[in-house]
C-alpha cells in the first residue's frame, strides 16, 4: 500500500519532531542523556577558542539533529546530506544516490580503514521492500598527517556513492523514501561524533529537482574516484621480512611514485615512511609492519595511489 504523502508545514514538522525527541529522551534518558552530555561536552569544547580546551555542561550541537528526519543536516563541522543522481524514483535500472559530507576547514572524516585513529562513517539504511541498495562505496582516500600518526580519510567535500534499483521487475513507484541512519566521527584537533537520520524522498521537492544536475555530476565524479581492481598484468605480490612487507608490482606504464593505503588494520604501520623504488616498470615499496601485527596475513589488500592515473585496488599475495 503506498505511503500517503503528508504536506506538513515546516514549523509544524519542527514541533512534532521536538515532541517526539522529548518523548524519546524521557524513555531512554540514562543512555541518551549520557551520550548527549558526552557529545555535548565535546561539541562545546570544539566551540571554544582553539587555544583553550575546557569542558562545559552545555549540550552541544551533535544530538539535536538526531531526531529530525530530513535530507540535509547542518553541524558546526559541516553539512551532511543525501543527494540523488536522478529525478526519477528507483527503477529496475541501476541508479545512484550519495551520502555527502561538506566539511569545514581543518575537519576530516575517515576512510573505511581510518588508519591510526578515528573511525569511518556508518549507515544503517531503511528502504522499502521493493528497493535493493548496494554497499557504500569509498572514493580513494588521502593521507592525513597528525604528529606521529597517519589517518586515511577525506577533507573538504566527499560523496560516498550507493547504487540502487528495484527488485523483481517493479516499475518506478512514488512516493519512495530512502532513510539513512548515519553516524560519523569528524576530527580536527578534537573529535566530534555525529549522527543523523537523513531521508531522500521521491518525488523530489522542486528545489531538489533543480539541484539534481549538479548532484549527478558530484556522484559521477565520486564513482570515478572509487578505486577499481588493478590489471592482473601488474602481478602484485608481497614478501614478508622480519620488520617489513616488500610490496612489488610491475606497472604499465611505469610510475615514479606510489602510496599504499591498507584495507585491513594492524598489518602495516600507518605512520611509517613508505620507501618507494622504481626501476623501469618495476615498483617496490617497503611497508613497515604494524606493532599490532600478530598473525601473518596471506594477502595485503589495499589501494595504490599513483600520480597521473586513478588509484587502484590491489590484493597482493604474501610470500
Amino acid at each position, binding site marked *: 500500500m503506498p505511503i500517503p504523502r503528508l504536506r506538513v508545514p515546516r514549523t509544524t514538522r519542527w514541533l512534532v519532531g521536538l515532541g517526539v525527541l522529548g518523548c524519546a529522551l524521557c524513555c531512554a534518558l540514562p543512555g541518551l542523556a549520557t*551520550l548527549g552530555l558526552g557529545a555535548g561536552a565535546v561539541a562545546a569544547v570544539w566551540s571554544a577558542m582553539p587555544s583553550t580546551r575546557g*569542558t562545559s555542561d552545555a549540550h552541544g550541537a551533535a544530538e539535536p539533529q538526531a531526531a529530525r528526519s530530513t535530507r540535509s543536516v547542518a553541524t558546526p563541522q559541516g553539512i551532511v546530506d543525501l543527494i540523488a543522481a536522478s529525478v526519477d524514483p528507483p527503477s529496475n535500472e541501476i541508479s545512484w544516490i550519495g551520502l555527502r559530507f561538506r566539511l569545514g576547514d581543518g575537519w576530516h572524516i575517515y576512510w573505511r580503514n581510518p588508519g591510526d585513529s578515528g573511525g569511518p562513517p556508518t549507515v544503517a539504511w531503511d528502504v522499502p521492500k521493493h528497493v535493493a541498495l548496494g554497499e557504500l562505496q569509498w572514493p580513494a582516500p588521502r593521507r592525513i598527517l597528525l604528529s606521529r600518526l597517519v589517518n586515511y580519510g577525506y577533507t573538504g567535500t566527499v560523496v560516498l556513492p550507493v547504487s540502487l534499483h528495484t527488485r523483481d521487475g517493479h516499475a518506478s513507484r512514488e512516493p519512495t523514501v530512502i532513510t539513512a541512519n548515519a553516524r560519523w566521527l569528524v*576530527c580536527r584537533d*578534537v*573529535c566530534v561524533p555525529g549522527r543523523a537520520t537523513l531521508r531522500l524522498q521521491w518525488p523530489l521537492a522542486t528545489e531538489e529537482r533543480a539541484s539534481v544536475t549538479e548532484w549527478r555530476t558530484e556522484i559521477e565524479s565520486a564513482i570515478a574516484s572509487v578505486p577499481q581492481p588493478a590489471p592482473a598484468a601488474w602481478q602484485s605480490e608481497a614478501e614478508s621480512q622480519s620488520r617489513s612487507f616488500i610490496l612489488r608490482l610491475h606497472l604499465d606504464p611505469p610510475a615514479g611514485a606510489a602510496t599504499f593505503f591498507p584495507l585491513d588494520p*594492524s598489518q602495516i604501520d600507518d605512520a611509517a615512511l613508505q620507501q618507494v623504488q622504481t626501476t623501469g616498470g618495476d615498483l617496490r615499496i617497503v611497508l613497515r609492519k604494524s606493532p599490532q*601485527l600478530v598473525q601473518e596475513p596471506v594477502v595485503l589488500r589495499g589501494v595504490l595511489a599513483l*600520480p597521473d592515473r586513478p588509484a587502484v585496488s590491489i590484493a597482493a599475495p604474501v610470500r
Partner: protein
Amino acid sequence: MKNMGLILAGCGCAAAVCCAPASSAAMSTAQLGRPAPAFEAPDLRGATHRLSDYAGRWVVLEWYDPECPYTRKHYDSGNLPRLEQKWTGRGVVWLTIYTADAPTGQQRDIAGRENHDASAVLLDRQGSVARAYEAKTALHMFVIDPHGTLVYNGAIDDRSTTDVADIARAHNYVDAALTEGMAGRAISVPASRPYGCAVRYPSVP
C-alpha cells in the same frame, strides 16, 4: 583531486621523515614478548613513577584524553572506572597516562577524579612515554606481566565505536588478558588495532 592526493602523500612522506625521526630510530621498542619500554613520569601530585618501581607486578597502561568521545564512552558508562577498581583490587598496577603538553587545572581535576581507582594518573607532558610505546590513541592499552614483558598491545575492546551501547556487546581484551595471564594461561588475543582519538603528541621543537 588525484594530484592533491599525491602532493599530500609526498608531503606525508617528507613530514614523516622530518617530523618523526624518533619513530624510525626507536623502531618497535614496544614489542610483544619483549621487555616493555622503561619510562619515568610524574603523577598528578608530582611524585615520580617508573616502570621499574612495579617489577614483579602486573601493570596496565591506559592512554587517556578526557575530551575524546571514545574515552567519554568508557568513562560516562562507568566501564573504565569499574575495570580500574576490579583490577587494582586484585593487585594490578593501573597507570592512566595523560599525554598533553599543558593540561589545564580543570582537565587535571577531571583526570584525577574519574581515575580515582587507578593506581596513578601520570602526566606525560613531553610525550616521551607515548613515544616509547608508540601510543596511537587515547584508549591505547598495554599490559605488562610481572617479568616486565609486554603481553598485550592494542584496543580496550573489539567494538571501535563511540556508542555506549556497544560496551555491553563488546569483548574486553584487557579484562581477558589479565584474567588469562594471571591464571597462567596464554593470552589469546595479544594485540589488536587500538581505537580512539589520536594521542596529542607535543610538537617536536
